[in-house]
């Protein structure tokens, strides 16, 4: 079944750790996105990609980085996590007319 997956769903880590949030989609979409969302608040675009080897920064400045080596995979990395990175991270992929969202990763940095 075509879908979009995110792992882990929940992550609690200490300050200074390096982490990678995984996102994979089986729909063959070229466009993929990462959003940051504080609980119950609006979405902020932090990264997007139009295809393999294409990555761009979004509207909200973020200390994270992304890569797009394969069409189906769009991981997000934080080299040194800080408490200010505590948030929910949503991955999405899209056709021309519609975005599909993963379940999200809730990150807590202590």
């Amino acid at each position: 079944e075509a879908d979009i997956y995110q792992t882990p769903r929940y992550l609690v880590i200490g300050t200074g750790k390096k982490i990678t949030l995984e996102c994979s989609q089986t729909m063959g979409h070229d466009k993929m996105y990462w959003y940051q969302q504080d609980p119950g608040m609006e979405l902020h675009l932090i990264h997007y990609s139009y295809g393999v080897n294409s990555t761009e920064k979004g509207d909200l400045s973020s200390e994270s980085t992304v890569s797009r080596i394969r069409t189906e995979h769009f991981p997000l990395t934080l080299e040194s996590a800080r408490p200010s990175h505590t948030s929910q991270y949503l991955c999405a992929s899209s056709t021309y007319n519609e975005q599909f969202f993963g379940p999200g990763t809730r990150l807590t940095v202590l």
Partner: protein
Amino acid sequence: AQSVAQPEDQVNVAEGNPLTVKCTYSVSGNPYLFWYVQYPNRGLQFLLKYITGDNLVKGSYGFEAEFNKSQTSFHLKKPSALVSDSALYFCAVRDIRDMRFGAGTRLTVKP
């Protein structure tokens, strides 16, 4: 740039009553408009979209939305609210690069 606005942070309705969640848009050209719903600790789920055609769009879970060009609105509606409809609702418009989301409206349906 395309944008949408959700003027209400919170909407409260009683179960069984009709509900409306408001959205207005600002676009150049023809708008592609969407509604998404988010339940606690989940990603966004697609409800419905307007691309072209009938102004009244029917979507998932009994929701519908009316596209009104003169009022630049795309309000989400349901004739009879359920407690399980309580969630965060986002209006969105497709832009060249991505989707532009509203700030969200929290709908609470009380028994």
